[in-house]
């Protein structure tokens, strides 16, 4: 954005706060403000002295927050789903932002499988609320990260690594919107991307250094854990790609990178590309891609023989038979037609193309067919 906005990064709950702190290290400028919302017991242990404000999650906290939102141009929320504190805090923060006509970008993590069905269901309900209130909602399933970890990774370490990854994703997505760019990309591009009922947005990041920086970044992008799931490529209908380059990047590298990025996607895809120089990148290139997959519209009629059991069900109607539940749908992050992705031994070969599909990608992936591999 030409006029760099003033942005508040707010972490809700334990997971969100940790992510916010990591982001604070990246966005080191008076233009950014940071805040944490959590139960008082948790905030006691939090050192936010040089970072920002804390809002103890207690009665009336959102009125205090409202004052801090004055004059801002963007609110970024980090949160983990599955619990109670973060979604309730988000509901209040979003309401206050709406009063001030402040756009909200929300990064929310979905629970690991081992956290249990209850937390997954709670997460699903929170997603519905966040979709309505956020200008852009980016969901990051922890379970997909989990599959990247070695089997002997302990639980705490898994959560910590997930938090770090989320922060990196958020920084990669947001940085180009917050500085003067080589190729400008506006925040409206991001809201345009997610401005689709029931759309799901997938995120991928790749880094590269040295002579093969571009190829390496593309390779990593395609191996991003959040892109590691199913679905036919033709389902993706839009993408926003941000390229961040170190201060000593050359015109040749930029050109090569933009060409490689355009080649990643089908010609029919609506694609917006931005590029910026990032002083925090020592060298090399980072490519961040947000891809949109417009999902199915869930049926709204409830089964008459299965009445609602709670008030919350009014906003989350029971899915029809054979329809995936909201939680399942949110966890099914599709993938795009990224060359080299999921091509295995054909990673370095000229792809076999047919009707805009890469036939080297397994058919079951492109057709979004779940295979029982247990």
């Amino acid at each position, binding site marked *: 954005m030409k006029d760099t906005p003033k942005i508040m990064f707010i972490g809700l709950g334990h997971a969100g706060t940790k992510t916010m702190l990591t982001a604070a290290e990246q966005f080191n400028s008076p233009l950014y403000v940071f805040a944490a919302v959590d139960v008082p017991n948790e905030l006691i242990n939090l050192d936010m002295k040089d970072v920002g404000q804390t809002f103890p999650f207690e009665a009336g906290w959102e009125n205090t927050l409202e004052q801090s939102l004055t004059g801002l141009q963007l609110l970024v929320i980090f949160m983990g789903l599955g619990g109670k504190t973060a979604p309730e805090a988000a509901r209040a923060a979003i309401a206050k932002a709406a009063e001030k006509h402040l756009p909200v970008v929300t990064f929310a993590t979905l629970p690991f499988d081992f956290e249990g069905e209850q937390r997954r269901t709670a997460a699903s309900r929170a997603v519905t609320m966040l979709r309505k209130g956020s200008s852009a909602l980016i969901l990051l399933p922890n379970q997909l990260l989990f599959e990247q970890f070695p089997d002997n990774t302990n639980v705490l370490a898994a959560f910590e690594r997930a938090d770090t990854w989320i922060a990196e994703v958020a920084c990669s997505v947001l940085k180009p919107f917050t500085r003067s760019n080589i190729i400008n990309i506006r925040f409206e591009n991001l809201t345009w991307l997610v401005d689709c009922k029931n759309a799901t947005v997938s995120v991928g990041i790749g880094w590269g250094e040295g002579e093969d920086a571009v190829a390496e970044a593309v390779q990593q992008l395609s191996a991003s854990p959040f892109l590691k799931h199913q679905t036919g490529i033709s389902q993706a209908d839009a993408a926003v790609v941000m390229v961040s380059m170190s201060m000593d990047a050359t015109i040749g590298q930029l050109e090569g990178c933009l060409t490689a990025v355009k080649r990643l996607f089908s010609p029919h895809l609506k694609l917006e590309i931005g590029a910026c120089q990032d002083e925090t990148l020592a060298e090399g290139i980072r490519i961040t891609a947000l891809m949109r997959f417009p999902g199915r519209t869930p049926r709204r009629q409830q089964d008459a023989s299965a009445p609602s059991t709670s008030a919350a069900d009014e906003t989350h109607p029971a899915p029809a038979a054979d329809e995936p539940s909201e939680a399942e749908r949110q966890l099914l992050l599709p993938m795009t037609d990224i060359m080299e992705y*999921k091509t*295995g031994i054909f990673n370095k*070969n000229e792809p076999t193309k047919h009707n805009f599909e890469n036939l080297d990608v397994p*058919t079951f992936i492109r*057709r979004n067919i779940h295979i*029982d591999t247990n």
Partner: protein
Amino acid sequence: MPKKKDIPFASIEFGTHSIKVLIGEFSANDELTIIGRAETESLKVVKGEISNLGMVSEQLAQAIDQAQQMAGVDIQDAFITLVVSGTYISQSIVSADIAITSADKLVSQDDIDNAIRNARLKDASAKMDILNTSNRFYTLSDGRQVLDPIGLASHSLQTSLLLIQARKDRLRTPINLIRQCIGRDPNDITYVPMALGKACLSPEEVERNGQILIDLGAGVTSYALFTSAGCHTAGQFTVGFEQAANDLSIAFGLPIQYARNLLQSFESLKLSAISANDGRSRLIDVERGPGTLPRRIAASSVEQVIQLRFTELFQIIKERLQRDNAWQWATGTVRLSGGLASLPGMTALAHDILEHEVEIAVPFNVRGPSDVLSRPAFIAPIGALRCAKTALDIYNNQTEDASSKSSSATSNILGALRNFLNI
């Protein structure tokens, strides 16, 4: 140019799975006898193209040596044909019109030859070599499409020709390899889909029209539709055994070699290309590598991965035949060749998708080692031997085809041969 009589013929194919060399002889009644055969594993051929010259050269030399020893002939004395497929080969359809100038307005063989000659001139490209051509059909002035127009009345004749072309630069790679091994270029080049018909269609079957042949290779799937006029449609795409193995590798986290082994073990594991969809009622143990325990997975899942892949493959073939307006001509049997043809359930799956009778291709009028005749993987190199013989016969102007209607179909082989010799 070697004389026709007593000359052995040799075909060389650089397949993604293996390099095959066949040496054969033809008797007076056109029966082919395979007198030498060799097959070495392809280590550096990907999607039908050579990726490491040095390694493939060694493998080729080894295969030629084995075949020569078995045949008791020097391959130098043979009429050699190179069997090719790959993304550098393209198919196009060209047509040309001529006026029938004879007083009686009856189409003659000369008319057909002129029309073909005109058609071939249309698609000349400096960067491409014409490998094969084939008649598709003829259109008379009243709009009728016929396979044999000789003697029919018409003011004009339009011929539709299938042109197979290859990029010169990429074609040189396998040619140079052969030259390195044996000291000279091959005499002829055969495109895999064209070879399939020569291998397993008898003259009676050719006359029956509309026979589809599909070669399911390791790196390339080729297909062709044959009518009495010739090869109506041919094509290929670089999907085969390797993609199926890769699918299994990705789905179940198997190293690629173990995924290949799994696919090759379908019969012994009682698996099928058509999934039984019986959930986890059948479990199989799949090796994952030395020092690791086998992985136990549902047989149905393995079958599902494979069924999806090959359902898509047959759908693509059908789609392409429909796109080329060839599907309407497909009235006969579908024959499957290539290493995957004998995968359990493959013929049934093809039948479901293509809605035609499907059988495994069997070479016609061929004698030789049973492991060559019984394996669909050898159909293409066997067919290439017949294509080579046809090419030589035409060149020597001694075949019965030269004086019949199909001389128009094969005369362009002569042109291709001349073209090739000028490389």
